[in-house]
């Protein structure tokens, strides 16, 4: 007889443990009373895979491996209702009771006294792959809806991947039908020149005045594959040298659009598609890395906190250490950054290619 839940092979268990956060693996082993000195994560994973683990332990590993693989991303869209009686709660209720979505598990919507509505969606995906333990993954999406003006609602979706955010967006869109317009930050609406301006201005508005822009850590450009009939895109990352020139220029207060590498990329037909940028707090020893990206598959604009660090003094040397980021603060970072992105985007849409936009910043976290 075949059992429904398979015990992982040693290979699967080692792989799954290797995908977890290092600190989780250390704590998992040590809580049991197992201490391995000077071990790499791969070595520790191999040691732990020699144990027969029970369901509770396997579940902990499964969850951590999934969570670590999929960092949280925030996607936003704005709903403009055509009917003054439009109520997003009804849309969610309609989706909850819909029989056409048996695999979706939507929680009832909760409404705070300030009018913020929020809830979650869980759905299961079957993933083909060699690691059975990581299959039939339950995906989780949190969303919030806030009325910002008459007939206008701001929706934020927090998910572990762009596909999950897109899944929610598509589901919501299918239920809204003709009752409201769903506005996103759309890569296709920006010209090549405006994408540079978009990221340039977004990096300036950033997280508000208490957070100083210190470095650009990644820049990605993409363009359609030249001389090819097939669909596809080429990516180009800014090299370390190019980044160091850009970062020197930032210290001198110059913009990205003046940079030679950016200009050349634009000339070669590339369009600016992603940026990771570092901010330091004016008073606290914290550093946060924000990433904004126009993803291609699915086509979506997403924001995420790439890292959150604390500078610690060791002797005379300042060393960055990973710091705990609360869910509330993470939410503040991503929503502020997204609101600023939307402001820049809206102001760009009203311009011709030669005009410079002026966007008002969002309130800072």
């Amino acid at each position, binding site marked *: *007889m075949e*059992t*429904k*839940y*398979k*015990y992982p*092979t*040693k*290979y699967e268990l080692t792989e799954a443990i290797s995908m977890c956060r*290092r600190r989780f693996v*250390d*704590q998992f082993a*040590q*809580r*049991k*009373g*197992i*201490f*391995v*000195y*000077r*071990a*790499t994560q*791969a*070595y520790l994973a191999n*040691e732990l895979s*020699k*144990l*027969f*683990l*029970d*369901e*509770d*332990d*396997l579940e902990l590993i499964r969850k951590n491996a999934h969570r670590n693989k999929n960092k949280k991303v925030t996607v936003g869209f704005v709903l403009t209702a055509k009917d003054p009686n439009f109520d997003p709660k009804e849309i969610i209720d309609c989706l909850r009771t819909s029989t056409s979505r048996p695999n979706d598990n939507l929680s009832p919507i909760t409404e705070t006294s300030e009018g913020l509505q929020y809830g979650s969606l869980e759905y299961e995906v079957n993933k083909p792959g060699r690691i059975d333990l990581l299959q039939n993954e339950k995906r989780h999406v949190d969303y919030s809806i806030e009325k910002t003006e008459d007939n206008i609602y701001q929706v934020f979706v927090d998910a572990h991947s762009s596909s999950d955010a897109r899944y929610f967006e598509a589901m919501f869109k299918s239920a809204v039908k003709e009752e409201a317009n769903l506005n996103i930050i759309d890569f296709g609406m920006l010209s090549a020149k405006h994408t540079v301006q978009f990221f340039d201005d977004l990096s300036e508005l950033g997280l508000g005045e208490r957070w100083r822009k210190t470095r650009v850590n990644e820049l990605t450009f993409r363009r359609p594959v030249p001389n090819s009939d097939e669909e596809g895109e080429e990516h180009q990352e800014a090299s370390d040298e190019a980044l160091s020139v850009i970062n020197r220029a930032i210290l001198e207060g110059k913009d990205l659009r003046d940079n030679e590498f950016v200009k050349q990329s634009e000339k070669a037909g590339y369009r600016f598609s992603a940026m990771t940028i570092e901010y330091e707090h004016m008073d606290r020893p914290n550093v946060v890395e924000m990433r904004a990206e126009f993803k291609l598959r699915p086509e979506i604009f997403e924001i995420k906190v790439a890292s959150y660090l604390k500078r610690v003094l060791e002797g005379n040397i300042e060393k960055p250490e990973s710091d705990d980021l609360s869910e509330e603060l993470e939410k503040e970072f991503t929503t502020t950054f997204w609101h600023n992105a939307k402001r820049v985007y809206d102001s760009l849409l009203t311009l011709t290619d030669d005009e410079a936009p002026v966007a008002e910043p969002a309130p800072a976290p």
Partner: protein
Amino acid sequence: MPEDQGVNGDMWTEQACRLLQKANWQKIGDSNIDILDTSGKARGLDALFSYEDGLTASLKRLVFVEAKSWATTSLSEKELKDWIDNLADKISSLRNSPGLLDTYQATKTLEISTGLIACYFNDPANYHSFRAKFEKWLQNHKLPYGHAERKYHQRVFVLDNGRLLWLASLLTSLRDWISSASLGEVRSLDFFYPSSNLHGNPVRRLRNINIEYIFSSLVLAKGTSVIDAANLTNEIDFAFYNGPLDEKSFERLASALQASNMIDARNELIIYKYRRETKDFRKIKPNVESLFKGLGAKSVSIKDMDNTDVMPGWVLNGE
């Protein structure tokens, strides 16, 4: 001093050694020994043991054992951290020392990287409420990381009441099974180490338990019953299980048994469970029984292991 020094401390060392010897670990030399390390410094150890690894063909390991008998109210996080680091330090400074290798010749053929702290809290009434704090202390300890693959790593294992009592209970079940042979029947039992096709290791049957099994939620063993007069030999498969008692967990257990060649149409399968039943378990018990029956073993029975807060008499008093 918070630790039970003198007579009480020595008594626990003796009892911990008895427990490990019952698990068929080989004791090397006397208890409470001083060994000179590579810098000529005397390092105190409670005992030296060896066992066969079971997972790597013909590998035998040396284990540096420290026995600690403490009250939950006396131990601090700093003290626990120092025990672990000191034992790791002893392993690395003794592994190449003539004080160890020449004095105890048997150690020359052994893999030397493992330490074991057998920490018995002698106020068991407080242990359950203390365990969460103890776990926190264990997981707070930050070890140095390795940045490249090295061959040598010290491994320190901390056994506290929970695992010590699980080990003692497991050994009690084995003893009881062997000693309850009927007249004319001879019973024997080996721990079973399934083959890992990734490493190409053969299946091993060993008298001793290895350290990974002590820290596992499932221990496998194979027993043999021989009745000469009837020219009858039977093999019995044993699974000792220390995991949750819900249906999903039993499904996982069933799959682990299948994958480890523990389901044999000719053999009886006995599952000994360590955790105690809850109301919920009673509800699902028929499903669990039919799950295991459906696997295809000759017969399946689910039995309970001893589960108490104190060491059994044979550990405390000897035979």
